[in-house]
């Protein structure tokens, strides 16, 4: 064996790792925001009366959920230019992650929508709101609170998926960890610190989101 730990090399580049972590978080936040919009639209589509809308939303969810995210990332990054769409690697990654998150969030929102009592919509209509107003002011806010726990889980797994951005050279945590690893050969220290950073970030996010959930929980 004969491996002696020396964290010096990793500490020297620690700020790089932290900036990578921050970028990863940023990517996850932007993606989940866009993903929520897609997911919400698709969730309403899956419970709509129109068959073709249900089919399209269903096909989208099944296709994305059964395809590896790495293939999706590479597809967006390398294949879109072939169709004449030129975007940078960060935009391309956000686009992929948002579409990916959207499929999972569709399921979340769909479940939350179906769990709502039917009286809610009727009550909205009864006080003279239109269908759209009922959706925006009654259905979505209530559903939101039901969906929050699942939303937090999705956010955490999305944050972990940002590590894949390293595959198209987006400078986030995993990218820098590989770089430090290759430059210094401090294998154990680099990967230990990198995974500890991820674990710590996940714990903090989970803790924070649980506080939010508790404050927003529907009192029973």
């Amino acid at each position, binding site marked *: 064996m004969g491996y002696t730990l020396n964290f010096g090399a990793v500490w020297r580049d620690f700020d790089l790792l932290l900036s990578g972590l921050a970028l990863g978080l940023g990517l996850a936040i932007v993606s989940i925001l866009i993903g929520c919009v897609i997911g919400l639209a698709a969730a309403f589509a899956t419970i709509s009366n129109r068959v073709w809308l249900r089919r399209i939303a269903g096909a989208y969810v099944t296709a994305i959920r059964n395809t590896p995210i*790495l293939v999706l990332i590479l597809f967006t990054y390398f294949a879109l230019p072939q169709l004449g769409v030129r975007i940078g690697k960060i935009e391309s990654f956000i686009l992929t992650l948002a579409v990916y998150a959207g499929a999972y969030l569709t399921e979340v929102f769909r479940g939350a929508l179906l769990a709502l009592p039917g009286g809610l919509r009727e009550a909205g209509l009864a006080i003279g709101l239109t269908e759209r107003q009922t959706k925006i002011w009654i259905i979505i806010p209530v559903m939101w609170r039901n969906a929050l726990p699942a939303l937090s889980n999705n956010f955490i797994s999305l944050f972990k998926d940002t590590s894949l951005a390293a595959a198209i050279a987006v400078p986030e945590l*995993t990218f820098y960890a590989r770089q430090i690893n290759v430059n210094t050969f401090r294998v154990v220290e680099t990967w230990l610190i990198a995974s500890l950073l991820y674990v710590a970030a996940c714990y903090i996010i989970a803790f924070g989101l649980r506080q939010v959930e508790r404050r927003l929980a529907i009192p029973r």
Partner: protein
Amino acid sequence: MLDLARFATELWIARWAVAQGLGMTILISTLAIVLGSLLGIGIGLVLVYGGWIARFIVRLYVDFVRGTPVFVLVLASFYLLSGIGIQLTAFQAGLFALTIFCSTHVGENLRGSLLSLPRGQMEAGKAIGLTFPQVFAYILAPQALRQALPAWVNTATEMVKASTLLSIIGVVELLLVTREIISRNFLSLEFYFFAGLLYFLIDYAIERAGKFVERRVALPT
């Protein structure tokens, strides 16, 4: 833009490479699912029935692995294990990472299923004079496994998808083969789409098979 005739020719040229990549993907996912499930069953049992020290250690392991992205696990096991003197091929290192990842998911799943069983099940078993192994084998396990099945099938599809990450450390599976083909003919759109389609078909088949088994083992209502 799209050049389907050229795609067909290129695909025909590369057919054996694609078949080999597909075989590797299936092999490595199957191994990871089987080994990971075996390890995961142990983890689930310790998490529910273990003493507090064992529980604490296993809980740390599970949380650490689940808090780390699979990609980092794959890279770490590839670089780290050889760094400390354990010489593994890319295949072995990748399989190790996927197995670890799978084991924590199966473990958590089994824990949840076992804990969701009503207490009365255990008490009823004891009341009719069964020992703990008997209660477990005849009463708890059949019910817990039935409950754990949907999530387990989901984990299996996750493993197929996670196996793509091994392409980064040089395991010649479907995605790496695809990337090699694309580097020769630049048909990124067609070949990435094709690879995505193959993965979709594998995962869709697993999902359908899982649904079928679920129906077969479901309790009659």
